[in-house]
């Protein structure tokens, strides 16, 4: 769960909240100091002076990502400009057993880029070149620090765009998107980052540079790229991405629809999908989320609505025309009291502004809030929303709902006031209970924000030990020493052991009960 304090991303920990696996995730500042010095020497030798930070005040600016209540000051920050520089630093880390954490723009909401006190933070913000736009091939080759929206900006002139569009697209990086397998409002039709990254150059945790995938599809061998995408920086650092460019649609229609209740809006959504229409997006906001958006960006959503849907259709003009008529009919049939189509680009932008600013907007109606990210089968929506409402009324904790209605990805915003004793704890409990609802309905604990440090402790609720052990096999293949973003994603630190895994004696850490043998 991401806890955001104040209107955006400030403030300290929730009272009583202990980050799961805090010690293993953050490391011991003193254990590797000799190693850090050695890595620092290598970094200073290969990077420009301004690319190595060790001054405590400078280091502190990197102490958290978008999940601001976990904070750890890294031992060293490096800002490489090339793959070679980055690989040299990673090689030094490997040689000295120093953990490293990659960081793109630091907008992650699960603490994935949380630094290690005993480790190096490798920031890609100086690797921001779009190396190639290959229109004929419908591909672009970009460096990991390139901002998501910059890819689209670079190719719209040629009639193309980059489809995955997280709400943070103005600031988040392609490398971070790749690591989180980020989605966006339009992934209902166009898919996630994993469907749009066709190749990558990866610096392995040993510091080797390998090519995964490429310009052409179906590279021979295992689909390591598919495994690396979404692995949250635990399998190495991506230093280049080959991304798919998508042709801009001939027609886009955006429609804002007001409903009396989320049940009505949900029924309309089911009718649309049931009719075989795949909209580019269907987003839902409930009354509380609408109230917040109004307060923040004056998006002028229908007054008195218990829920709104933002529906976007795109594609060939004739097809969109037809689908649009059907969508209007389904909405009306299910109790829509206001249908407001965007008539120009400005109106379209305003409709989306209300939706895309929803997280931050909630700060207008509550001093503190948790951004939850869970998934349910879409058809369970009415039931789960009712259960969330019950949770909210029985606990007295307000919950605003914003979500990708088309694919069942919920983003409940759990509101609280940290100044009130116990409020943070109560909000945490409601937020956790929402994840339980998702799991109990056969869903997922995260649809796009990732596991990071935040949800590592929830992984055993979704996966068995055998499932997690099997995932760990991949980790061990890439990173047997466990130095690439350790403490994230998996609930307990595990040791890899030697291939073929026939160990005679227990590892000392296992004997001491400090780690599970794997």
């Amino acid at each position, binding site marked *: 769960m991401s806890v955001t304090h104040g209107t955006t991303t400030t403030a300290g920990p929730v009272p009583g909240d202990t980050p799961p696996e805090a010690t293993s995730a953050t490391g011991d500042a003193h254990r590797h100091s000799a190693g850090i010095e050695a890595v620092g020497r290598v970094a200073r030798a290969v990077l420009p002076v301004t690319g190595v930070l060790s001054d405590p005040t400078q280091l502190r600016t990197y102490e958290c990502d978008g999940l601001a209540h976990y904070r750890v000051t890294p031992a060293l920050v490096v800002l490489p400009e090339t793959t070679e520089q980055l690989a040299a630093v990673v090689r030094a880390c490997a040689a000295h057993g120093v953990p490293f954490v990659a960081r793109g723009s630091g907008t992650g909401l699960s603490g994935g880029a949380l630094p290690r006190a005993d480790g190096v933070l490798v920031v890609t913000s100086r690797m921001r070149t779009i190396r190639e736009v290959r229109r004929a091939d419908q591909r672009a080759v970009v460096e990991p620090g390139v901002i998501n929206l910059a890819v689209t900006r670079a190719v719209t002139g040629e009639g193309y765009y980059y489809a995955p569009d997280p709400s943070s697209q103005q600031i988040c990086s392609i490398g971070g998107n790749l690591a989180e397998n980020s989605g966006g409002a339009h992934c209902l039709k166009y898919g996630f980052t994993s469907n749009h990254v066709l190749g990558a150059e990866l610096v392995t945790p040993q510091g080797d540079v390998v090519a995964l995938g490429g310009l052409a599809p179906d590279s021979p061998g295992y689909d390591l790229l598919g495994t690396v995408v979404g692995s949250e920086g635990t399998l190495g650092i991506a230093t280049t991405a080959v991304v798919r460019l998508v042709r801009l649609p001939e027609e886009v229609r955006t429609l804002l629809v007001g409903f009396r209740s989320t049940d009505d809006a949900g029924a309309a959504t089911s009718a649309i999908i049931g009719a075989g229409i795949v909209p580019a997006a269907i987003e839902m906001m409930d009354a509380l989320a609408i109230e917040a958006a109004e307060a923040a960006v004056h998006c002028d959503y229908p007054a008195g609505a218990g829920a709104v849907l933002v529906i976007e259709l795109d594609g060939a003009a004739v097809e969109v025309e037809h689908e649009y008529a059907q969508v209007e009919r389904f909405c009306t049939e299910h109790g829509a009291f206001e249908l407001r189509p965007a008539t120009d680009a400005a109106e379209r932008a305003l409709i989306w502004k209300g939706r895309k600013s929803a997280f931050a907007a909630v700060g207008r109606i509550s001093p503190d809030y948790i951004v939850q990210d869970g998934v349910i089968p879409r058809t369970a929506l009415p039931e789960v929303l009712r259960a969330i409402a019950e949770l909210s009324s029985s606990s007295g904790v307000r919950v605003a709902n914003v979500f990708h209605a088309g694919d069942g990805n919920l983003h409940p915003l759990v509101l609280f006031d940290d100044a009130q004793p116990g409020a943070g704890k109560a909000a945490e409990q409601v937020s956790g209970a929402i994840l339980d609802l998702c799991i109990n309905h056969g*869903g997922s604990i995260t649809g796009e924000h990732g596991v990071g440090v935040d949800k590592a402790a929830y992984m055993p609720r979704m996966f068995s030990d055998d499932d997690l052990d099997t995932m760990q096999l991949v980790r061990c293949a890439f990173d047997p020493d466990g130095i690439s973003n350790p403490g994230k994603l998996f609930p307990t630190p595990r040791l890899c052991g030697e291939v073929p895994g026939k160990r005679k004696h227990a590892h000392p850490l296992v004997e001491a009960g400090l780690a599970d043998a794997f």
Partner: protein
Amino acid sequence: MAPTGDTVSLDAARTALSGACDDVREATAADAVDGVPASLVARPASTAEVGEVLRAAAGHELAVVPRGRGTKSTWGRAPERADLVVDLSRMSAVLDHAAGDLVVETQAGALLADVQAVVGTAGQRLALDEPVPGSSIGGTLATNSSGPGRLAVGTARDLLIGVTVVRADGVVARAGGRVVKNVAGYDLGKLVIGSFGTLAVVTEAVFRLHPVAPARQWVTVGVDSAGRAQELAQRVVHSQLVPAAVEVDWPGDGDGGAGSLGVLLEGTPAGVETRTAALTGLLGGGTAAGTAPAGWGRYPWDDDGVTGRATALKATVALSGVAGALDAGRRAATDAGTTLSWRGSAGAGVLYGALPATAGPDAVAAVLGPLRAACAAAGGALVVLDAAPEVEAAVDTWGPVPAIDLMRRVKERFDPERRLAPGRFVGGI
């Protein structure tokens, strides 16, 4: 079982397997995997039974080759050993179709056609083509086979949302889930797709589904050169007509240069009609039809087994390299005194080539060299999917594979004793 043919250990293995599964028998000649004789065949009925079978196999050091329906069992290299064939044909149930969620859960031994029949009742489809008729879900995943529809909806990696596998040591593991959007944990489904049975045995799979479009129309236009095929394909993919497929068909026994480009449009009846008119304008002609042209969605090689085994090639290229690969292959084949038939997705950069059974190892090798170079120059690769044993033995079927060391390390972790389809995959994996 070491060595193969050791009757004592075979008997012991058979006893252990029979304890794990009630359908275990001696293999026959028909169970041979790409010419490699098998000793035993087990047909487990559930994921748990596959686990038991693989645990028993591990206990007796048996090399295990998973089999769906055996339609592509000659693909890849022949395994070094095939002590035990784990046949998944008893696990053929389509477990659950959640129509409202556009999701289907199926056992791996289910026929792709059966899955389509079930989801079709709700006007839905699993958007995976079936280039080899009779394919099972597991075999489709293991070989990552795909067809024309990949242009718009992608391949197995874009559709598989959850997977259950059994590891070489018999441990059952799941990844993903039953929801379309899910980023919890590593995506093991991606790893097993295209792994040719060398990492784990897939026993169950969950896929996202797509609605069936109410109308379809194919527009076919003749092309007299590879350059022309690419040029027209470029026009279509850069248009806003939203093609569902862009295929090139280029028979080697044709009159020198003649081939065709086929474009599929899907949508509403009125929409498809309007777009078809626009498309023929864009292509400067073409014939529209409500049914697919001959050979659509089939590989260009004969799989009847009567004419001997053709050499089956898969060439991948960036879109600007389509013509280069088509030409390079055709030229090399002519120089080697044989013919090369091409068919595949000119819009996605995946082309399948067939060299006739009459082309021996030398001729195949003479084609592979220049063609592989052309594919590599276009950011892709060339692999020999299938070939007669003497051809397979003489040529580098998989070709150079970047990141092979990392792949080996993955294999070592999943199957340290190299018992799952050993030798079938890249780099001898």
